[in-house]
């Protein structure tokens, strides 16, 4: 039996139910071919208008929610090493430690790599489309983990803003720990990953051609 534990699952269930109703109405029309009277038109308006609209709305929201999750990011083979490391309970990489955080661990890829700005979600999804195109054209048939493809690199340098969503750069303990570097980090002269650079070590090690900061 289908069990619903989250809003995403509820939206998916609604979308699937409405899609099924729409298809049933469609099949009824194709099989019976009733006269186009007021009743038929109303029924078809439900099947061709109302239910598909609900499927679009709920399906889009549910799909968007799913695209934030780690399994979705790891569903392209080229992300395999990154995913395995992030899900390894023994790994001490930054990615693995953040993925074990129960508050956002399931969405760890998106949480750290999404653009942190006003339209960050939109620009991130635009980049996601670019990822998909690159994956299909350059990595898809180049080995189980896309080894034959070019080194993976970020489109732009990783900014500390993503870290500072959670790690406040004004907290007393943080200021004490970071000493003279604190101001440089806040101003962007220094990045968190300049020192905390064990991010995706396993994935990095398999690409010897990747230079510093090339593969994240």
């Amino acid at each position, binding site marked *: 039996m289908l069990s619903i534990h989250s809003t995403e699952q509820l939206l*998916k269930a609604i*979308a*699937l139910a409405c*899609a*099924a109703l*729409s*298809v049933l109405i*469609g*099949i009824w*029309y*194709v099989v019976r071919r009733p006269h*186009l009277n007021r009743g038929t*038109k109303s029924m*078809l*308006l439900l*099947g*061709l*208008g109302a*239910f*598909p609209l609900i*499927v*679009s709305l709920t*399906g*889009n929201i*549910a*799909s968007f929610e*799913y*695209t934030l999750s780690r399994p*979705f990011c790891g*569903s*392209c083979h080229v992300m395999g090493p990154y995913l395995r490391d992030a899900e390894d309970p023994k790994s001490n990489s930054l990615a693995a430690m953040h993925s074990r955080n129960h508050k956002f661990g399931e969405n760890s890829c998106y949480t750290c790599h999404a653009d942190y700005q006003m339209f960050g979600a939109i620009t991130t999804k635009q980049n*996601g*489309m670019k990822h*998909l195109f690159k*994956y*299909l054209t350059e990595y898809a048939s180049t080995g189980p983990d896309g080894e034959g493809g070019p080194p993976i690199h970020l489109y732009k340098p990783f900014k500390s803003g993503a870290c500072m969503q959670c790690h406040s750069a004004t907290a007393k303990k943080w200021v004490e720990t970071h000493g003279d570097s604190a101001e440089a980090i806040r101003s962007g002269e220094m990045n968190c990953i300049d020192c905390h650079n064990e991010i995706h070590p396993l994935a990095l090690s398999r690409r010897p051609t990747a230079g510093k900061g090339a593969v994240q």
Partner: protein
Amino acid sequence: MKHEMAKKMVLFSVLGTIVAMIFMASSIVYPHPLLLVLAMSIGQGIAIFALVLYLLAVALDLQASGEMYIPAEESPALEAAPPAEAPPPVQGSGPPEA
């Protein structure tokens, strides 16, 4: 003629919607990136096109029904009827004399 065309358009619209719904439902059940992108772009495009086609078909059908309907005041039976006689002028109600 228009009625038959409307029925064909509705049939295409229904078939398009079925394809779009299967496409979109499959992307929800198997959310692979490529399927998801295709379903949410092409699938929704087909669904929107099907709805527009259906609305056009309904408009066409209503137009065809309107052509068959003849309003009572324009019916030939009334046009052929002799004009009613004008009532006799009432004394004192005519135009004022110069």
